[in-house]
């Protein structure tokens, strides 16, 4: 039978590639069975252990909300403050390593063998990696972060020593200019090369070991150079299980928080009633009141259900029919909003923030990324380390997804398109949204909506709508923004379900569709259950803190991946000669 031909010799991928000879057959540890009409093809024990761990942690957060919140926040703060140097040092290393790949001869290695052809066109590829990577973060932080740095003395000292707003009044022009410059530099620092280098390392390691070395598309494969055949055993299971676990909780908690942003947006645009009197509502669901204790968590659950339902349709339609289409729609709408704000907002100022921002970024990147002897610990622990841990805990998901769609690209092309171009787009986005918002604060002072919702009161989920509210056609752009936030969550949710399914199926991408449906619903279910629990968003807080703490573990994973990429590319180069 043809089954027996599986082990007879391994022809190369398309063209030269340094395939790894191993007796491991993809799917050999899988359990193939069916429960009633539902077929399953799952990795034992990764699928079971990840699912049970998720349920246990959700139960813990519901049964002992106070205890788990305090414990997980304490762990997160410990990780952020004690290992700040480790995060910063590693992230710097990732950037340098990725940039080196562009200029060295290794850059010419092609993912999938020397004659492989790209699976996706540039626009489709780019849309997918952006939508999965950070789309939703741009919507949330685009206005918030630059304005926050500009106008508040957060942490233990204002960044760079200059504050744009002093005692609720706009400072003198020289101080404003300096505060603006530093606000752009610091924001770009968090959204530029470092996060994309983190994603690029994971994606490149997985793509290389899968497409060129013939190992399954799952996290453990990048550990082959270090662990050898042991990677198929206990340690490989640990790595994959933690990756599935971090991905699921990362998605579920941000889905929960995202629902609050959608609810705020909907209430902002379509709401009625008075927030002071506690009657502010969206279609009868109380939301956005000064006293939030009566705000409706049912509204949040309905939003989560809606997002999950669309994600489900997308997941069932698959990679090309669902995720790719949604990512492209997403990019189109995001581009529309971006260019609207760019042309209707203060265009010249935005351009100067863009080019000035790049210049300030270049000037400040060394002090901002310095791991040792820092005095600005408020900024360092509150923002930079938080972001680094967050990007890194998110990287198994985004990296796997990028790897899935990157076959056929050369390493050089890959790094340029995953590192440099997205960084530039993020800088432009931040200059457009942040620059417009800062100008509104400078011109409007405490009359401006952005001032009231970011500097005077801290309402992050309102910040984007406050900025759009001061531009023309606010009722249209705010609706567009709500739609965008929803679609970005849908694309995270569906691509996340594909990734978790692949990890928990031992690297098989053709496991039965019912499994992705399971993960997609599970993810929405976790978010909803946490919100409905007595702790409300506190439950989300504690589990998000736990996810961020896993960033420490995955930083070590990423360091090993750099080593793996180095070893892997060496053998590829030898094959090509």
């Amino acid at each position, binding site marked *: 039978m*043809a089954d027996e*031909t599986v082990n007879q010799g*391994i*022809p190369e*991928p398309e063209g030269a590639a340094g395939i790894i000879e191993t007796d491991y057959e*993809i799917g050999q540890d899988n359990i193939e069975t069916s429960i*009633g009409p539902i077929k399953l093809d799952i990795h034992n024990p990764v699928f079971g252990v990840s699912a049970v761990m998720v349920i246990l942690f959700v139960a813990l957060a519901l049964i002992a909300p106070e205890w788990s919140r305090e414990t997980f926040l304490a762990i997160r703060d410990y990780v952020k403050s004690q290992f700040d140097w480790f995060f910063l040092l590693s992230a710097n290393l990732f950037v340098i390593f990725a940039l080196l790949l562009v200029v060295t001869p290794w850059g010419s290695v092609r993912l999938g063998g020397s004659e492989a052809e790209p699976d996706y066109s540039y626009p489709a590829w780019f849309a997918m990696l952006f939508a999965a990577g950070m789309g939703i973060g741009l919507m949330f932080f685009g206005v918030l972060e630059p304005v926050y740095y500009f106008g508040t003395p957060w942490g233990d000292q204002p960044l760079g020593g200059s504050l744009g707003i002093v005692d609720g009044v706009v400072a003198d022009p020289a101080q404003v200019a300096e505060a603006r410059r530093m606000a752009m530099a610091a924001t770009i620092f968090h959204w530029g090369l470092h996060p994309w280098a983190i994603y690029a390392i994971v994606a490149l390691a997985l793509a290389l070991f899968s497409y060129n070395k013939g190992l*399954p598309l799952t996290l453990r494969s990048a550990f082959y150079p270090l662990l050898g055949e042991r990677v198929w055993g206990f340690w490989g299971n640990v790595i994959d299980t933690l990756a599935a676990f971090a991905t699921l909780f990362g998605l579920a908690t941000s889905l929960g928080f995202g629902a609050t942003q959608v609810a705020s947006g909907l209430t902002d645009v379509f709401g009625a009633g008075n927030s002071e009197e506690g009657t502010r509502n969206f279609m009868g669901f109380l939301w956005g009141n000064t006293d939030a204790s009566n705000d409706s968590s049912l509204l949040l659950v309905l939003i989560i259900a809606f997002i999950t339902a669309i994600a489900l349709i997308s997941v069932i339609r698959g*990679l090309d029919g669902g995720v790719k289409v949604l990512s492209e729609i997403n990019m189109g709408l995001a581009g529309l909003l971006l260019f609207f704000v760019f042309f209707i907002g203060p265009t010249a100022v935005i351009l100067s923030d863009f080019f000035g921002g790049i210049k300030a970024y270049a000037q400040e990147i060394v002090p901002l990324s310095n791991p040792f002897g820092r005095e600005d610990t408020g900024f360092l622990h509150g923002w930079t380390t938080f972001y680094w841990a967050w990007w890194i805990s998110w990287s198994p998901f985004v990296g796997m997804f990028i790897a899935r769609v990157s076959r056929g690209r050369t390493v050089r092309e890959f790094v340029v398109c995953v590192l440099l171009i997205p960084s530039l787009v993020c800088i432009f986005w931040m200059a457009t949204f942040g620059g417009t918002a800062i100008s509104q604060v400078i011109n409007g002072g405490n009359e401006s909506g952005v001032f009231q919702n970011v500097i005077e009161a801290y309402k992050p989920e309102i910040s984007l709508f406050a900025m759009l509210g001061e531009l023309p056609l606010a009722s249209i752009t705010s609706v567009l923004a709500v739609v965008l936030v929803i679609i970005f969550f849908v694309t995270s949710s569906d691509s996340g379900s594909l990734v978790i399914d692949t990890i928990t199926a031992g690297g098989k991408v053709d496991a039965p569709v019912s499994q992705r449906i399971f993960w997609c619903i599970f993810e929405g279910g976790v978010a909803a259950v946490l919100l409905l629990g007595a702790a409300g968003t506190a439950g989300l807080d504690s589990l998000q803190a736990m996810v961020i703490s896993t960033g420490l573990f995955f930083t070590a994973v990423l360091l090993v991946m750099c080593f793996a990429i180095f070893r892997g590319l060496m053998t590829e180069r030898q094959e090509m000669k």
Partner: protein
Amino acid sequence: MFKKIMVPVDLAHVGSLDRALACAADLAAQHGAEIVYVGVTAPTPGAIAHSPSEFAAKLAEFAAGQASQHGVTTTSHMVQSHDPAVDIDKSLLKAVADTGADLVVMHSHKPGLSDYIFEGHGPYLAQHAKASVLLVRD
């Protein structure tokens, strides 16, 4: 009557295809037709092969094995799909057109509850393909 018979095969579950394979071989011998075995794969390494080119080689090997076992002329045709779990129906439909087959012989399970939710691959082809379709039940 038939010149080219297309037989979709799942190389991971060849054991369950025996009846369909035998049926296709009988028909091919009777009509003097050629059989083309069609396999669908993702670009990622899978249970069968580490790369699409290896998959194509395995499929060709399978076709050769069938030729010597049943004494009929066989070829093979690989279809690459980004997401086979979802795209398999469309991939097979495209293969019917690409191979120019005038008959599709494929294995099909007995209809059950899940067929009310997910349409089977066989019924899909029967409904959409220009060629004749013969579904062989287990």
